């Protein structure tokens, strides 16, 4: 399987191409803004660096994978709009994976449940709990993705020690420790990475790609910040 993976959902922008089970080329940069400018040149660079595996470029790809959120609303839309249009124009399917599962898939096995907490730029964090399966590169979710205040975390987690990862792990760890919970903070892969996304998507859809034109759905986890006007205003 040959697939292109892109991520623009958080404060980084990355692109990776996977062919024959390995990452052939990847590009990545930290950025708070500017994803809309950076993404397409990065895709072009990755394709140019993958000519041995994909000499015909997009025509050789089987799948596009993208992080569908949760993350920055605009960043999520940049990735999904680009992935959907690339897939349609190339005549191949596109799939969306969550930022939370991609961060989870990057963590080393710790033997405990893994809580991924991502910075939501608000009081709450985006988080999800994953099981300590035999293969940590394929995360097994124990909860749904949710936006939650760190202070509410201790009551929501099963008893016992947990591992913690993600760029929202700081406040989450503080809240858990304050509640007397034992926390193992995993370091080094706190944000989604296109290369991890590519491996995860390849593992999930190997041999059974989704049908052409399957819709990509954003995962915002938060309603638009707007209130109805007062009556009569």
């Amino acid at each position: 399987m040959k697939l292109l993976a892109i991520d623009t959902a958080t404060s980084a922008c990355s692109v990776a191409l996977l062919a024959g089970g390995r990452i052939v080329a990847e590009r990545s940069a930290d950025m708070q803004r500017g994803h809309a400018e950076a993404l397409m040149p990065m895709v072009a660079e990755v394709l140019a660096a993958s000519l041995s595996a994909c000499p015909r470029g997009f025509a050789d790809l089987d799948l596009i994978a993208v992080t569908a959120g949760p993350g920055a609303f605009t960043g999520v839309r940049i990735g999904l709009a680009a992935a959907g249009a690339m897939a349609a124009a190339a005549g191949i399917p596109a799939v969306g994976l969550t930022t939370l599962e991609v961060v989870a898939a990057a963590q080393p096995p710790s033997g405990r449940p893994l809580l991924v907490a991502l910075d939501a730029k608000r009081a709450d964090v985006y988080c999800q709990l994953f099981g300590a399966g035999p293969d940590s590169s394929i995360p097994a979710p124990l909860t749904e993705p949710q936006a939650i205040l760190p202070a509410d975390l201790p009551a929501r987690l099963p008893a016992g020690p947990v591992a913690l990862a993600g760029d929202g792990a700081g406040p989450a760890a503080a809240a858990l420790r304050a509640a007397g919970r034992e926390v193992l903070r995993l370091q080094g892969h706190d944000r989604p990475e296109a290369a991890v996304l590519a491996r995860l998507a390849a593992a999930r859809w190997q041999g059974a790609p989704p049908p052409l034109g399957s819709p990509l759905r954003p995962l915002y986890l938060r309603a638009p910040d707007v209130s109805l006007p007062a009556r009569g205003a």
Partner: protein
Amino acid sequence: MRVLGIETSCDETAAAVVGGDRRILSNVVLSQLDEHRPYGGVVPEIAARSHLDHIGGLVARALREAGTGYEDLDGVAATAGPGLIGGVMVGLMTGKAIALVRKLPFVAVNHMEAHALTPRLTDGIEFPYLALLVSGGHCMLLAVRGPGGYRRYGSTVDDAVGEAFDKTAKMIGLGYPGGPALEEAARTGDPARFDLPRPMLGRPGCDFSFSGLKTAVRRTLDALPAGPLDPKTASDLAASFQQAVADVLADRAARAIARFREEFPGGSTLVVAGGVAANRHLRAALEKTAQSNGMRFVAPPLALCTDNAAMVAWAGIERLGAGLTDSLDAPARPRWPLDETAAEPRG
């Protein structure tokens, strides 16, 4: 030559395919009116989400209706601003992605340039011409010399004209969207019943101002008995407001015609475009101004005055024809003056 156009800068998601021979092969527009109506105005985050939900399906439909495959396209044009940035990003990334995959030239279109060039698509008029662009976010008079070639004669110093329509309609209680609702109410109203000011009328230059007019409507309402307006009064006030706007636009346009004539003796057309150009009363007033000043008057059909993607595709064709393309790192620009050398216009 066939170009795909994409428009997502406000509250319409649109895609179109236009030919270099000025044929509109498809033109699909999805309005988000119902999604924004409860809020009495466009909510940017709701707009951006809706654009993302619909853009893929609309592009597919525009290609299908045009009988065009990706392989038949010669270029992709997408609105890159000015507008609501979250929505603009959706269309911009869609356009860039298609251009990259299909190895097509890409054009990042200025939404106001697309409005300004529409009369060349619909009526085939020649450069140079004088354009009055009136919309929810803009009000300006420009000499149009060619793609990318604009000289601004005047613009609003406060509210855009569409903004004034929407706010006034809200004050009178005419519902959303305000522009069409106000025009409908004004149809049966007496434009002479309320004596509203004509800001800037007779003043030198070609600038506009509408905030004083809006305030005058507020004062008029405050002076009326409390409680809901009777339909006759609402209609009369709407008609009086619309007439005041028409008088101001006509006066400013007449001044701009004089200046345009001096600078471009070869030009003889006044164009009005943009969403507010869908207002029939304003069109009629401007047509009269053009005629009495010896100018030809051109206004695109109503459906091509409001936001659409055929105009974006056409702007792409014009710019490609002039050798103007953009790279795939082109930014979305929430504010983007047409005449880059001038100071940024307000409104």
